[in-house]
């Protein structure tokens, strides 16, 4: 396996694709994904923040080399990384026997995550076969000949079948450039939210009231990003064992109780706060040279 792995890593390095170099894995990103989806590797053993660091370094090196952003790779990385993060979160959450509805719901959620990941991969592979088919089909040249004059003389008078007005309407439709409706992208430019900052606020609030519902904890959040950041902060604090979750019924009120010290510093994660510099007016995927 080591040999084949190195080989494919080399091939990928040559083609300029993104590779990952971890203690327990060294090779192309796509292979990492394959191993995880075939369960040859445990998702919990992969440091996503390290993979992310490497990816950012990869993008930076492309920038430095003058090649610029590889948007196709960046977007692909983001979708796969987001799914892996989902998976990892699901894997890290405590789970016992599948004997009540909550566990079943959790299992279903994982099922969906895997299905999504696999579906994404399936379409990627199908796209490769499309490409091959088009290349093959382009080598076949059809016989396209005009009808022989002796034969066309046999034809009845041609019937255009529409009047001048209808004919003009057809021309208008055909000559109008084909466009599809635009989608607002304003939501992509929300101010950045720091998980570390939100984490401090969460600790403060919990020390103050000992126990509170998640609903109350995020009641003053003015956008979804803040809600997400506080939730990530809670997961991290839970890992440190300074709080407890209680949820009586599935999808019911999530109650959080502080079990940590009343004073002193609580370790605040910076795992989620890797700075990302967005380039304004970057063309969206594929607009350049499709």
């Amino acid at each position, binding site marked *: 396996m080591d040999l084949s792995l190195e080989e494919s890593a080399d091939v990928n390095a040559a083609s300029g694709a993104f590779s990952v170099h971890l203690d327990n894995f060294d090779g192309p990103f796509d292979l990492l994904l394959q191993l995880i989806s075939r369960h040859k590797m445990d998702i919990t053993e992969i440091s996503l923040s390290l993979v992310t660091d490497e990816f950012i370094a990869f993008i930076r090196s492309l920038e430095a080399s003058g090649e610029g952003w590889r948007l*196709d790779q960046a977007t692909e990385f983001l979708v796969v990384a987001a799914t892996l993060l989902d998976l990892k979160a699901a894997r890290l959450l405590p789970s016992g026997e599948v004997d009540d509805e909550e566990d079943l719901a959790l299992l279903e959620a994982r099922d969906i995550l895997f299905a999504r990941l696999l579906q994404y991969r399936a379409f990627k592979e199908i796209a490769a076969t499309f490409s091959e088919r088009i290349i093959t089909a382009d080598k076949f040249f059809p016989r396209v000949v005009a009808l022989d004059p002796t*034969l066309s003389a046999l034809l009845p008078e041609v019937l255009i079948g529409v009047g001048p007005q209808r004919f003009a309407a057809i021309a208008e439709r055909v000559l109008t450039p084909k466009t*599809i409706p635009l989608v607002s992208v304003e939501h992509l430019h929300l101010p950045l939210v720091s998980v570390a900052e939100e984490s401090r606020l969460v600790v403060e609030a919990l020390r103050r009231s000992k126990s509170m519902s998640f609903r109350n904890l995020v009641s003053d959040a003015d956008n979804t990003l803040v809600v997400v950041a506080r939730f990530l902060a809670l997961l991290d604090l839970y890992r440190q064992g300074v709080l407890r979750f209680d949820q009586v019924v599935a999808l019911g009120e999530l109650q959080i109780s502080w079990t940590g010290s009343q004073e002193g510093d609580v370790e605040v994660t910076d795992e989620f706060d890797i700075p990302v510099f967005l380039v304004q007016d970057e063309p*969206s995927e594929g607009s350049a040279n499709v």
Partner: protein
Amino acid sequence: MSNLEVERSIEAILMVVDEPVSEVILAQVLEKPVEEIEIALAHLITTYDDRGFALRKVNGGWRFYSNPDYHAAVEKFVLDGQQSRLTQAALETLSVIAYRQPVSRARVSAIRGVNVEAVMKTLVTRGLVEESGIEHESGAILYKTTSYFLERLGLSSLEDLPALAPYLPNLDGLDEILDSLTD
């Protein structure tokens, strides 16, 4: 009309047509059952095995094509034969639409995990994808592939698309993965 005459007549017709011809039309013109036409076409194909041309069914109709083995020689004659290549992003988006049609842009976006607006626009402009009505609940525009798409892929109909199943693991495999997760 003997079998041989049916085959020769089909050859004669396909030599003058400017559009692909279906078995049904050939059957009507030659006054033979469609099955007999299908047998004749299948046999004709085998007689061209070692020729510079080939008989193919694309987009529901039959016509003569040059043999792809000799495409280099043909290309010298065909001036605007060069087709521009699709990008990886366009190919992936096209494959989602092909297998999920009719499908809204939002749904394609969800599967691909990225905004597909620009790519969809290109696919529509290139004539590979077209609008196909409105989704009732959401009011979103639905998209499907065109007959030109079939032509470009050399497919006779959408049913000839390769099955998606082999690219997705079977249920047993998925169960195994799920079992290991609950360890």
